[in-house]
């Protein structure tokens, strides 16, 4: 399992319709237990790249394989089922305003699994406590505070043991209250063999976690490039 590639992006050139990503070939390999930190100053490009990893961006050339399966060779309902193996923290648009935050947290797990609802609620409650929420928030996303939504987003991403975590700026702008439980949960997830791709504006935010990070990268106009860190980063 350790040698298998979880996410394999090889020479993937986004189509012209995707105007947030530069029209260059992207290459990235994420193995189980890997943690890739990507510095991306362009927030739209980060979302677009996360979409590319989830098979949501059509390609001109190349391929994106997740768990050995080509996104574009799959059809529904297998496609949706495979996307259900990804936990994601969205930068925006991740919350359905018509449901409570609790329902939003539970929805992906309720949709993709047949695990008993009570067990899922217990799991969500346990994660909520770890991230500093008193319980499952019953407010709608509009009523909830930004920090609570950030915590709830982490809870949702980690629910139901995903194979890959795509985290768009999960703790940016928030206090250490969120960063420390996040790092603890990421460490736990990595030990279980979960691949992690995390976008950030500042690489030094991840100083405390640098021993567990396998790749440091930067997303910019010329594509995805590796970053060699100096010792003080």
């Amino acid at each position, binding site marked *: 399992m350790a040698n298998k590639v979880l996410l394999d992006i090889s020479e993937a050139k986004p189509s012209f319709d995707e105007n947030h990503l530069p029209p260059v070939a992207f290459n990235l390999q994420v193995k189980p237990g890997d943690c890739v930190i990507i510095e991306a100053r362009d927030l739209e490009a980060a979302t677009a790249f996360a979409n590319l990893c989830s098979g949501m961006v059509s390609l001109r050339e190349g391929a994106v394989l997740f768990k050995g399966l080509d996104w574009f060779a799959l059809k529904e309902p297998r496609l*949706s089922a495979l996307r259900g193996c990804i936990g994601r923290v969205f930068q925006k648009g991740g919350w359905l305003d018509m449901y409570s935050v609790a329902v939003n947290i539970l929805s992906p797990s309720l949709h993709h699994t047949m695990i008993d609802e009570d067990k899922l609620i217990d799991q969500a409650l346990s994660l909520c406590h770890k991230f500093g929420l008193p319980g499952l928030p019953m407010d709608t996303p509009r009523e909830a505070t930004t920090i609570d939504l950030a915590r709830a987003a982490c809870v949702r991403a980690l629910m139901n043991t995903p194979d890959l975590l795509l985290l768009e700026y999960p703790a940016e702008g928030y206090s250490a209250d969120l960063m420390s439980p996040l790092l603890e949960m990421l460490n736990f997830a990595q030990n279980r063999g979960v691949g992690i791709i995390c976008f950030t504006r500042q690489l030094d935010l991840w100083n405390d976690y640098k021993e567990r990070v396998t790749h440091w990268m930067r997303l910019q106009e010329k594509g995805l490039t590796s970053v060699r860190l100096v010792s003080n980063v």
Partner: protein
Amino acid sequence: MKHLGDLKGKSLEKNDTKDHIEVMLSNLNKDGIDDLDQYIEDIRSREIQEGQRLSTQLKEVQGSRFSWLLKIWIVIFWYLRPLLYVMGEKTRSYLHFLLGVLAASWGVLIESVSPVTWRRTVKYEFQRTLGQVICGGFFSTFFTATLAGLAVVSQAIFWLGAAGLTKMTGSILITILVREVAPILVGMILLGRNGILTVAECSLLAMNGQLKALSTMGIDPFITIVLPRAWAFTIGSFTLGMIFGTTSLFMGYVVTYAMGTMQDSIWVFYSNILSAMSVSDYILVPLKFLVMGYVVGVGSCITGMNVKIGDEPSTLLPKGFTRGIMLIMVVNILFTLDF
């Protein structure tokens, strides 16, 4: 001289091909204009505008016996063109919408058969919407039915009694109230109370990128949003229709009984109504309510999800309402033809 000859040859060649854009392109490159595509687009639109001028079109008519007739036709068409444009645009838009509703309706039917479709999220959305449709529409339906009972039923009973046609009361009430008025009024209550809400919700989902987020999480918005809502509207419409029919007849009876026009008991009255119903009424009247709810549900979701960049609530909600009314009338007419 040689160079001049070459140039002349080149320009002639270009004139032959009539590719003015290429000539301009070469000049543009020298001038250092960057946005060539935009410039080409401007030139093309200018050429099209030139060609579309009335005087240009009239000049292009070759002299023949009936050229004056052709010129008159060009002038008439020229002045009718804005009107035709508006008519054509609206017709195409409504046809496009109708075809979209048909396609989505078919999709909902096909997907509903699969047991994989009915996951917990889909059931949750179905229950939530059904509650909204029935509980939210109950009082509106009840009061509308009461008013219809007072206005239609009592008046029909009174005037038919005065004309000595009491025996026809049942068949007339079935024809007017149950077959025609009730489905339209229930459809409009459903549309106003829940259809518009669905348009607003779905448009917000689309505009805020939440539909895409759902797809990214592996949750198909068509299965999770459109399908359960379509069925919730269907069942809700049937339920409200039955409430409407029963309440309006009951209220009509109460008023006429109180006025002394009606002497029979309520059971005899209902029995008369039921005996006036044919076998087809027992099938087609409930079917009309079901289809009405189904198309209103699908149409509202489609209108909301197909939101355009320039759309705002002030334009989208009236669009949703008019489209919903159109669907109600189309279903009503189709069923009326079948009767």
